[in-house]
């Protein structure tokens, strides 16, 4: 397992320069937008910090996901890896572990980076450092973690089942599913659910249980997804 994580990490490390270019671009666009929009300090902090801490980790995580699954199918690496002293479960588990590590590390790194950039932007523009409230930061982290884990929980089994070349065509499937929210009947259902959730939060007096519940649900789905991946990968031939 250690060897598999090492290989995955080596693959990702070599492409960090490419990922960073995208991250710099995102930070640049967000900062530029905040300077040009008519925002108060809190609004600017929300735009800069909120966007950087959520978009950058997700984008970076998806880059890593593509790099790892893309490599699996190149030059027969999958066959060589299977010939080595690893079980198919170890291969599946290591990939899930690696993606989880990547997401957690990215959320921490970009959370800090977003705070630093926001501090600089608000200091330069408004003469004083303004940051998002801690609850809002925590909510954004929980949301990012849950969204990315659920997204991967859907995608990873497809990639283990079909391999990169075929499965990449289905990568945007959950994204398109989200577009269903643009339909009026779906919106109504979502509003009703959101209303009930807000009522629940109000009755609990704190959003913390909801946040914990959301993350726990995401982890549960992620774990179930790993079992499904093992099932499909166990019978796959190379």
């Amino acid at each position: 397992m250690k060897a598999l994580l090492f290989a995955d990490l080596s693959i990702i490390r070599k492409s960090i320069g490419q990922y960073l270019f995208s991250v710099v671009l995102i930070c640049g666009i967000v900062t530029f937008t905040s300077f040009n929009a008519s925002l108060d300090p809190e609004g600017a902090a929300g735009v800069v910090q909120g966007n950087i801490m959520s978009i950058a980790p997700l984008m970076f995580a998806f880059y890593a996901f593509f790099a790892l699954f893309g490599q699996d199918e190149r030059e027969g690496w999958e066959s060589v890896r299977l010939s080595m002293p690893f079980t198919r479960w170890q291969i599946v588990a290591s990939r899930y572990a690696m993606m989880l590590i990547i997401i957690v590390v990215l959320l921490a790194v970009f959370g800090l980076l977003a705070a630093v950039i926001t501090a600089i932007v608000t200091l330069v523009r408004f003469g004083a450092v303004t940051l998002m409230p801690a609850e809002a930061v925590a909510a954004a982290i929980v949301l990012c973690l849950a969204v990315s884990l659920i997204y991967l929980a859907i995608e990873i089994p497809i990639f283990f089942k079909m391999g990169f070349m075929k499965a990449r065509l289905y990568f945007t499937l959950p994204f398109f599913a989200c577009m269903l929210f643009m339909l009026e009947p779906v919106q109504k259902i979502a509003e009703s659910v959101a209303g009930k959730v807000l009522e629940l939060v109000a009755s609990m007096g704190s959003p913390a249980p909801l946040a914990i519940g959301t993350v726990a649900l995401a982890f549960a789905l992620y774990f179930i997804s790993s079992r499904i991946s093992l099932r499909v990968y166990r019978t796959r031939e190379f």
Partner: protein
Amino acid sequence: MEQAVDLSIKGIRKSYGDFSLKDVSFDVPAGAIVGLIGQNGAGKTTIMKAVLGSIALDGGSIELFGKDPAKLDEQELTALKARVGYVSAVTAYPTMMTVRQIERFYELAYPAFDRALFDEMCAKLSLDAFDKPVKDLSRGMGMKAQLACVIASGAELLVLDEPTAGLDPIVREEVLDVLRAWMNAEGRSILISSHITSDLEHLADYIVLIDNGAILLDCTADEISEQGIASLRAGELERLLADGAYAPGTLRVLKRELSYAVLVPSRRAFAQAYPEFAVDPAGIDDIMALLVKGEVR
């Protein structure tokens, strides 16, 4: 005493659309090199995939060191796989990884990995591009890196898929030398597939010829060298067949431009019986051509 067998393939069957492996059986005895030959698409790679567990079999079984991998628990399976080293026809490592990182990967994967041996192998093979990513390695360098890794891994059985294909003669000879030297230790064995049959003539103890998913020949290298190719004119061939010295269905005959090539089981016996006919030692290529394309007479 019965000879130990590192790999035993017993009646394996596998179908893919219009191709199928048909009850393929052969052994790789401990201390032996078995050369697997055949045309493209004959089934060599399918056999290798079956040995490595990359495909599920429709029938038959495979035993590695006396154990059926399909019947082992995960711990036993990884321990068994640690005794097998696979070298792919292409350098199948992640293209971004450097040779040093590949070495580290093997070190983490194989409990018996010997770093000093890896360095020794690299020195022997003049492989010094440790910091080069795999994508920048030449074909020869990539093959050397694979060999150094599997040999240092502590494997006892090497499964080599076309290891000399696309290599220049010097590197090819270096690779073969490394394999010969590796075989000097007891209990080691190699299953090697190759199109370059001259490599196998000098290396293999046993030859297995596969065609269209079925084994046409499974014999020792000595048995190969005992066979002969007689070049006969039409009249000479008719005389040979009419003589009855060879039972019907035991000779393979291939029509060439000006003569007929006849595969005879013992060239010495043939030369004694027919001193007037030309007979040469049969190479693996000749035998393969006659068994695959020749007519049974």
